[in-house]
């Protein structure tokens, strides 16, 4: 395709740029175009997690949430052992049912549950951290059509100098609507 690379200059006041797609294949083409142009600063929105989109955007890079999960689970495993073991060791003479002060078999259940609990909570935290929720997103991303049926490629802050070029590229890939600035009107679809 041979488009020149576009660089976003952050010191330059940006322009909101939004391309709305009605069709998945057009969106994919748009993403491919942005990728090919090495354009940065865009976000894709979709009403559902299509793996084609995610593959196109992330090119198989895994989500770092998994490290949160692993850390949480390992921490949970240890907490699940240390909590019962240390608290029991604090009262070594309080001996229920003749079991040793630190009894691995009964503690295995606690360890398992804590692994799951802490792993899940860490995953949740990781998800929130990485995906930025709850977050005040840029206004341009708050488009009710996205949760309905439309796809978008949004530049929350496209460099003014690039806007026209980007517009052209997006229209070319099949965007049904390309708007800039705050001129877009977002309406709640009729139920």
């Amino acid at each position, binding site marked *: 395709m041979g488009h020149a690379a576009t660089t976003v200059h952050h010191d330059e006041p940006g322009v909101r740029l939004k391309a709305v797609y009605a069709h998945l*294949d057009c969106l994919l083409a748009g993403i491919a175009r942005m990728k090919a142009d090495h354009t940065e600063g865009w976000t894709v929105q*979709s009403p559902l997690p299509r793996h084609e989109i995610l593959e196109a955007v992330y090119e198989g890079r895994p989500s770092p949430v*998994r490290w949160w999960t692993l850390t949480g689970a390992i921490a949970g495993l240890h907490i699940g052992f240390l909590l019962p073991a240390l*608290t029991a060791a604090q009262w070594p003479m309080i001996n229920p049912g003749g079991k040793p002060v630190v009894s691995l078999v009964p503690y295995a259940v606690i360890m398992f549950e804590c692994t799951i609990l802490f792993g*899940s909570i860490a995953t949740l935290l990781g998800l929130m951290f990485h995906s*930025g929720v709850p977050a005040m997103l840029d206004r341009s991303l708050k488009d009710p059509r996205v949760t309905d049926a439309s796809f978008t490629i949004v530049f929350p802050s496209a460099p003014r100098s690039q806007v026209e070029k980007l517009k052209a590229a997006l229209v070319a890939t099949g965007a049904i609507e390309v708007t800039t600035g705050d001129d877009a009107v977002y309406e709640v679809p009729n139920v």
Partner: protein
Amino acid sequence: MASNDAIYGYDPRDPAAPNRPTTYGQVNRDIIRPLLRPTALWLLAMAIVVGMMVWGGFAWYQQITMGMGVAGITHPVMWGVYIVTFVFWIGIGHAGTLISAILFLVYSRWRTGVYRASEAMTVFAVMTALLFPVLHLGRCWQAYWFFPYPNQRQLWMNFKSPLMWDVFAISTYFTVSAVFFYVGLVPDIAIFRDHSKGLIRKVYGAMALGWHGTDRQWHHYMAAYGFFAAFAAPLVLSVHSVVSWDFAMAPTAGWHSTIFPPYFVAGAIFSGCAMVISLLMPMTYLFKWEPYVNLWHFENLAKMCLLTSGILTYAYGMEYFIAWYSQNPYEWAIFSWRATGDYAWAFWLMVFCNCVAPLVWYSKKMRTNPWSLFIVAAIINVGMWLERFNIVISSTAHNFDPQTWALYSPTWVEVGVLIGSAGWFGTWFLLFCKTFPAVAITEIKEMVAPPVKGAGH
């Protein structure tokens, strides 16, 4: 892209396939339409369940003020309807997690239509079950002693106790199911937010956590969702195993058995799937979800029930076999008494409900008949409650010392709490169905052919 139908669309066996939605927007509208618009029928149902809940609360009030003596529990039957119902509700919860997590991991397609409602059922069933460990306590106001928190007394709990495992298992189960449920719900809440205005929009906007379907959100979401499912899958097996250890860890004859964990898990899934059928059948008609939840799903749920009913029947038989084969007089006494003694009615009713009645579903015709599905599912629910009744009551009523043998019968307080728990569950479930998308919009969308322009450029 007609081939997308085969990949993403409905199963061709789906009887409702002709009515299936064709666009994402249609899915939104179909499912959002009934929300926040109470119908007379819904209001009536709410009045009934809230009434039941108030009645249960009244019963519980009396129990707190006057003590456990207002319940029917007695020496030597120290656990009665409360623990029976606790296990029942925990078991109910299992189907939801099974459907939402395990079937997710194995890419089962029929899961999509029913998983949100089943998951809601799980969360609410666990919330209901969580009432019982507290309200069956002699001193429920001390229930916070179950949790590990540093205190000036320097006291901790007994992590060797199956009840403490229970606390961990169930609180973990509740937390993980609730998180899993909520995370799954967030994109759908965002949809509803975008379809509403004013205050409602603000409320749902807060709950949607700023979800706008960006690639970054979806990327991490999909990863996290997979992990949640992966966590929930072993959890669902462990929770009822731990519940079964509440019994199996005591030396009491009839409880002290290694077969309990698989037996309980199978029973839980059995009862849970039956409960999903029982709950979703009326909902489907009430909320007009036929395109999304229909006989295809119910048939699959019935098949799950058939499988687990078989496992249960095997477990029942194996309990008797082991009691006989081991020549353990205590075990044999319990099991023969269960089938012939004072609670034989409960035993044989249970056998009918759990082993015999589901057999009709071997017939495809019965399996796809709404009335047969609904009635047999209700029978299974009764049967599974009775199963726990048999386990809990009969073993303690005829324990080791024949001189202590006594019988148990519940009082109205216990029945009231049982009914109240159903009211509590029903209240949450009905409220949920009216305020949140009870069919997973986003995931249904995944089954709809995506809008494609074709080779247009």
